[in-house]
Structures are given as C-alpha cells and as structure tokens.
C-alpha cells in the first residue's frame, strides 16, 4: 500500500489530496512528480491535504521539504492541511512545524494564499 493522490482546483489554489504512505520509493517519488507537474503547468499555489496520510518516513519528510523549497524558489507557495497526530508530531520533533504553514480548515487555508 503506497500513496494515492488526486488534484482539484479551488480558485487559484491547487489542492492535492494525499492518502496512504509517503515513504522511500513509490510514495516519495509520486509526491515529487506531482509537485513537479504542477509547477510545470504554472500552478504555484499548492495546498497539500495530508489528512489521510497514515505514515511518513524520513524520505517522505525530505520530499515535503524539497517540494516546499522548490515551490518557494519559483515564487510560489506550498502549505499543508489536516495533519494527523503522527505527522504533526514528526514535524514537531524535526523542527519543521515552524517552516511549513499548517492549516486545519481548508476554507481558511485557501483564503490564506496571497
């Protein structure tokens, strides 16, 4: 069981709904490709909905960080939505919680993009 992604557009914002495991291999590669595709299509306001992500390893965390820096360097914004306790705790102990903008409500998250 690996990651599943689906993408939808809410105004200017691209919401990526992720479910499953973001781990070394298929999971982290798929996330990377997804973000790369969006940037290639000029979609630079990205909201990653992690509500159904059951597991992230250090490779998955690395992919989130890499996605964040790539999008930011291209003048875009990448934010996170609906962290599970497990993912929240992981971002806390790796000090990345302060790096990412994290939201619990989609409407508020969508509005927060500038």
């Amino acid at each position, binding site marked *: 069981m690996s990651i599943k992604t689906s993408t939808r557009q809410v105004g200017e914002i691209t919401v990526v709904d992720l479910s499953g495991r973001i*781990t*070394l*291999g298929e999971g982290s590669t798929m996330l990377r490709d997804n973000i790369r595709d969006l940037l290639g299509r000029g979609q630079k306001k990205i909201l990653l909905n992690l509500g159904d992500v059951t597991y992230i*390893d*250090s*490779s998955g*965390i*690395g*992919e989130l*960080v*890499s996605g*964040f*820096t790539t999008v930011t360097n291209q003048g875009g914004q990448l934010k996170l939505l609906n962290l599970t306790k*497990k993912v929240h705790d*992981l971002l806390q*102990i*790796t*000090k*990345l919680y302060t*790096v990412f903008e994290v939201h619990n409500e989609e409407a508020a998250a969508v509005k927060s993009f500038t």
Partner: protein
Amino acid sequence: MLPDLHVYSVEVRSRIAPGENGSRDGRREKRVEMTFASSLDSVDKAEEEAVRFAEEAGFGEEDLQKVGMAVRESMVNAVLHGNQYDPEKQAAMRLELDHGKLIITITDQGNGFEEDRIPDPLSTENLLRQSGRGIFLIRAFMDEFHVRRLQPKGTEVRLIKYPAGETKEE
C-alpha cells in the same frame, strides 16, 4: 536466487518467574534472527516483522509505531546507504526480548559511517536539507541507539525499547 526474507534461525526461550506476573513472564524472553536481500521490499518486511514481534511482546500502539519507524529507518540505512542495493550483500536483523526489553540489532555489509559526522538536522543550516533525518528519528523513537563498526566490513546498529513505564538502568 536469494529470497527477500529468510528466517534462518528462531530460538524461543521462556522464563516463568514465581509470583503474580506469571501470565506475562512466559513471553519475557525470546529471540528471532533473519536475513534480508538488499532491496526496498526488505525494508517493509523487516518493519512488519519487528512490529509483530513487539506486539506479541506486549508493547502498546504508540511504541509499535515508534519501533516500526526506527526499524524502517535503520533498514533503509542498511540496504541503501550501507549495502547500496548490492544483490551480493545482505542485511540481518535480530529481534530479542530480554526481561521485557526489546533489543533490535541490524547489520549490513557496507563501508560504514562515522556517527559523529552526521550533521545535526535541527540546526538552521540543515533544517531545509532533503536528507539526513534518519538517525535523528531513530534516536527520538527508541530508548537507546548504538552503532558499532564490524570487521572487516559492515555496520551494526542496536535499537533498544524499554517496556512502558521503565527507564534506562544506570
């Protein structure tokens, strides 16, 4: 061709202690050893085996998640960074229960690494690096973590988890 997972030795010992905790003491000591091919598939299998072992030993849900994650990170280090997916090399895992304490030993046949040369992933200059968090997470999730270089080649890591409520014996 070598199978991905080969359990080559299983040893189970039980100790029945006198007193009121008899029902649990029967599973306080146990040992299982297995070897794995240097593949990504082995990482998943090792994680499953370790979690099942810890669950049977009575560890709770939160500890099982931590053990699973620590084993996953250690196995990635072994098969990817150590053995570099070399089909000629193997990774081995030993799962032990010693008086309720879970001891996981994972070895590879790679060139090894210097533990004190691993950059601190929490420092400002490393915070946005894509990699380098594996060992940090293992330390965060386990009660003890030890690294030993093997001769002539290879690395052994030992991960230890205490039963709930117990702390390191000094």
